[in-house]
């Protein structure tokens, strides 16, 4: 093995260790969140406090409430045997009330409520699955509420 090759091997080893260091140092607890189901969260309870959690589930019908003034929403996620209350402050995603599965990321507080930092909607690109699963496809009327209120404002503006 010539000197040149040894030099390159050493350089490679240094580079790889640098990558490895970077890599391992990024695996800190604040970068990780545990992917759990609603039931697993209910089982583990308080032991989860302070840990990042990611949970996916359907919103329990009629559990959705919105405090527009304070820009807060809250709802309950459905599990097999248990439910999980979730709170979120900020602008929620468009399809939050459409009955699609919701992905919430955040931490459990002292009251067992998931305080979500991130809220996403997993929307299927096809509606077939929803129909096949026998779920209620959201009614157009549900969504015209917003337009109705907008129309109302317009009328008021005219008067």
């Amino acid at each position, binding site marked *: 093995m010539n000197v040149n090759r040894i030099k390159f091997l050493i350089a490679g080893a240094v580079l790889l260790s640098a990558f490895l260091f970077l890599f391992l140092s990024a695996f800190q607890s604040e970068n990780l969140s545990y992917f759990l189901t609603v039931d697993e969260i209910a089982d583990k309870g308080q032991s989860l406090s302070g840990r990042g959690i990611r949970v996916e589930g359907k919103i329990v019908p009629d559990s959705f409430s919105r405090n527009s003034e304070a820009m807060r929403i809250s709802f309950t996620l459905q599990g097999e045997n248990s439910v999980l209350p979730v709170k979120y402050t900020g602008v929620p995603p468009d399809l939050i009330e459409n009955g699609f599965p919701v992905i919430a990321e955040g931490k459990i507080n002292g009251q067992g409520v998931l305080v979500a930092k991130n809220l996403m909607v997993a929307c299927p690109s096809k509606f077939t699955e929803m129909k096949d699963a026998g779920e209620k496809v959201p009614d157009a009327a549900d*969504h015209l509420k917003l337009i109705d209120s*907008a129309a109302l404002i317009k009328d008021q503006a005219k008067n």
Partner: protein
Amino acid sequence: MFLIELGHYGLWAAYALALFSAAASVWGGLHKRPELVAAGRNAAIAVFWLVSAASASLIVLLMTRDYRVEYVVSVVNNNLNAFYRFSSFWGGQEGSLLLWLLLLCVFSFIVLRQNRHRNLELMPYVTATLMVTAAFFMTILNFVTPPFDTLANLPLDGRGLNPLLQDWGMVIHPPNLFLGYVGFAVPFAFCVGALVSGKLDSAWISTTRRWTLMAWFFNGIGIMLGGAWAYRELGWGGYWAWDPVENASLMPFIMGTAFLHSVMIQEKRGMLKVWNVSLIIATYALTLFGTFLTRSGIISSVHAFANSSFGWVFLAYIAVTLIVGFGLLIWRLPLLKSEHEMESFFSREASFLLNNVVLVGITFAVFWGTMFPVISEAVKGVKVTVGPPFFNQVIVPIGLLLMLLAGVSPLLAWRRASTKVIRKNLTYPVVVALVTLAALVTLGVRHVFAVLAFALAVFMVASVVLEYHRGISARRRHQGDGIFAAAWELTMRNKRRFGGYIIHFSMALIFIGIAASSAYQQVGEVRLSVGESFAMNGMRFKYEGIRQERVPQYQSAFARLAVYRNGARLGELEAEKRLYFTPPQPTTEAGIRYGLTEDIYAVFSDVDEDGSATFKFMVNPLINWIWAGGLVFTLGAIVCFLPERWGRRRRRTKVSGARAETGAGTEVGA
């Protein structure tokens, strides 16, 4: 009824022919039976015609809203206009797989035409590889997600295309990405051809140079279009979230970037042969993996495509690809000896190798982060996801190293650069970068990574400018050209090298845009009544009221906003909320005031009866540099792609032109 049958049986016939073509080609190639090779070739061409006919049928069925077909019902409805009816060809699972197959068949057809009299030793295995891939996609299309299945009862209306996909960005994003994914199948197929036939010179690389470039370009531009769509349509003000589906498209692009650079070393110096073969196998496997990841539902993603049952078929095919690819590679190792040794750290080869290691490192980090839930579940029994902070922490520093290399590499000579030459070449770019750094810090830019990214981007640009400056001055001295004529001639006479520099320049623009918009984005969320204002760092947004519009597909509410900076009125902004009728679904169309220095971005979330509405306001600095970079990227790729002789002026004297062209230069592509 005819069209449905044509599509249905066409795909089955194509399936049989593709399998026959693969078998006949391999057999004919191994046993030197030209008639079998010809039969394989003709069968592959027949596959192209059959798949084209099937695709045309599906398009006609969609355009005429033939609701007997289940797929048509799932993506089209009575309100959908012709443009979106056409694009709904790839709006759902079945159609998008058919588009994939169609592109593969078109590429195979072109490859077969181009190589009728060329690369004859390789071609049987090239045909076979492409047809095995086609057969794999037809396995899925025929057995798992048949696009031509019919419904028992004829519905009156379809369920419609997902409203989020009813946007030009989403119309052209998937075909672009697919062109990229499928395009990489061609260099892979030639690589397999070279391995099997044992003809392992650089012919497989030079033949597929433009294919690789095309695939890489469309993969890149596809990613960018996806980001631009997310930015306008999803209303979170960002363009990239390290979501598994996004990562899936990024990985083959980065691996392809490594391949694109390292093949130059093989062409110039006959080195890194094993590495190049490994890279293209990995790139191709990553395109398959990307398709698998987006469709299998194995990893939780916001993009959640139709969750389908063919995940294992895909994994099996990826495994076969890797085993066959690397198996052939190991078998042929004795033929893949390097013709030269690395001589010095300060050589083009060494810097390219380093760039390759960095790119593969990035790919690995993205892969690991994306697959971590699956890995941690297998190892520890808990699904753990890593979020964007993980990716940013790992990839930003490696990315900065990559920018440094992109600036240095073009200025190093092949084999060994003397200290004198290094000093001469690097002084100017290094000084410019350091001045930028000092100026930014003096001006109060304190975000460490952003400052470094800006300085390194300037370094990259300076290295490109230096190369242009030298070439242009040489031409001016020797030919007496004007500046623009000299720049044009220089580029046209060295398309790969200067096209590559243009792409480096575009990357600098993109990195600046990414660094600025991620480090200095400002966000405010607020509830406003009509007439109220919201102030944020010198900006003021005044909510002036609601306006409505109705079109056949949807109804819109626009929130009208007046935007002020430091008291001066900048103009109006309308943030839109749409409600589609079928399927009933709201979408956000962010109100964006585009600008060279910053975008002003407003999202209209909801509104109450009293008119008070919730907004999200953002200022995204330099974000348009990313899209501008995309345009420059396109320009550079076109330059690299153009025919060798195109755009050159006829030579005046025989000796002169040569001088400017023989400097230390780099070239893009194989």
